[in-house]
């Protein structure tokens, strides 16, 4: 349990670096975790070569969901959309630096799901947990 609330989580939750809404943006996506009502939206700017030049997230939820979103958004600056599409749950676990239990992993993966749905240009109906497996 103490693992879950490492300094990085509490810090990123309280003072995220990448919280905001980019306007204009090239990619926007938002979704909820229906179980707990957590909400994440992402906005990305992508250059002609398909490289993410700027990214931000907004939303509300538990410390795990919001801190993971902040870390994830940080990690994709300078990455190509193809690289973003290839991200999976192991990448999120690596970003956090420790494994969460199965229940809280869902909280951490919401931002990845939203990010990948945006990168693929999916509609809300097409989003499923398969995206992050």
């Amino acid at each position, binding site marked *: *349990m103490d693992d879950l609330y490492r300094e990085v989580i*509490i810090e990123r939750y309280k003072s995220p670096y990448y919280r905001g809404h980019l306007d204009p943006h090239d990619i926007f996506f938002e979704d909820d975790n229906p179980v*707990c009502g957590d909400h994440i939206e992402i906005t990305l700017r992508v250059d002609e070569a398909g490289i993410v030049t700027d990214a931000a997230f907004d939303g509300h*939820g538990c*410390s795990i969901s919001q801190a993971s979103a902040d870390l994830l958004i940080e990690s994709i600056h300078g990455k190509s959309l193809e690289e973003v599409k290839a991200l999976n749950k192991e990448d999120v676990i690596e970003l956090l630096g420790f494994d969460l239990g199965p229940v*809280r992993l869902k909280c951490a993966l919401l931002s990845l799901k939203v990010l990948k749905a945006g990168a693929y240009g999916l509609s809300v109906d097409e989003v499923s947990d398969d995206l992050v497996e």
Partner: protein
Amino acid sequence: MSQSKTPFDVGLLRADFPILDREIGTAKLIYLDSAATAQKPTVVIEAMNDFYRLSNANIHRGVHTLAEEATAMYEKGREQVANFINAASAREVIFTRNTTESINLVAHTWARANLNAGDVILLTEMEHHSNLVPWQILAAERGVRLEFVPVTEDYLFDMDAYGELLKLEPKLVAFTQMSNVLGTITPAKEIIKLAHDAGAIALVDAAQSVPHLPVDVQALDADFLAFSAHKMLGPSGIGALYGKMDLLKAMPPFLGGGDMIKTVHLRSFVANQVPYKFEAGTPAIAEAIGFGAAAEYLQNIGMNALMAHEHELTKYALERLEEIPSIKVFGPSAENKGGVASFTMEGIHPHDIAQILDGEGIAVRAGHHCAQPLHEKIGIPATTRASFYLYNTKEEIDALVAGIYKVKEIFG
């Protein structure tokens, strides 16, 4: 309703619940999630075990000894449940899977036979999704109109607004007797009386009330009343729908299949009598026996004594929680409230609160508790909910408060 035979002694009662000896990590389990599901006493567990060990067989129409025993035990479960809510006849109790299925049964049978486009169903803003979505589905299909009795600023059922809304001449008033989020106890008897005066049928969502308050369907004059076994110390997978016999008799069947028929031909069938008409297929037999055992266990304790114990706990919990800075408890004052304390803490998400409390062995629930519209109304996405039952103690509430201070410490 039988009166308590012995004084209410929480220490003695706790010994009836084997799970309460469990540890979570190194901490002793403190179970404050009974509004989600209650723990089970040994008598319930053993009643079900005995059935499987000694008497297991399918019910109805069997000739052999085991089939007769199983049928008698299943029907005894029905009588115990009927007795617990003081139904005029055990046949007025239909076994379902849970409260949700009970309400859906009414929506599929009574409502589809009796409601037409433009007819009004009156609900409240504090309904659980199970007393909301079945009616939304019906509304979309039939053009039935849904209206909602508001919750007052004090988190109570708004009687004045209800009086106004009854002028719409609703055909059905379906409402919770106790909110699973706010703990609000609604004046069910008065609500039903006014519904009847306006020509409406009344359905009570009693998922939270039957486990915690004395409920007498005849005194309430309820037309339908829905509840689950698992919230009242019984097993999951079984619930009940009480209905007045004349209504049940006039209703079309629910699911089609075995046991719900009297005769079947290739192109037609004649439905069985009430309640079998609504119980297609092999039911949850062991669970019905466990359900009956739970009802009898509660009846022996006495619902008035149980209610008084929970009221003391709730009052104490509200006092202790409200001492904590930056905490907000939602719901009415203790007089109108069941054993539920839903709260928020500034800047800390309910999920995180629940997780840290779990580290202390304390089980609470976080989320919108299947009442999203109510959360929208009070303007918050989620709450942390501690809920109490007969086996909880003031010491456990002290531990909850200590756990909350730990949450504050971690989040600084």
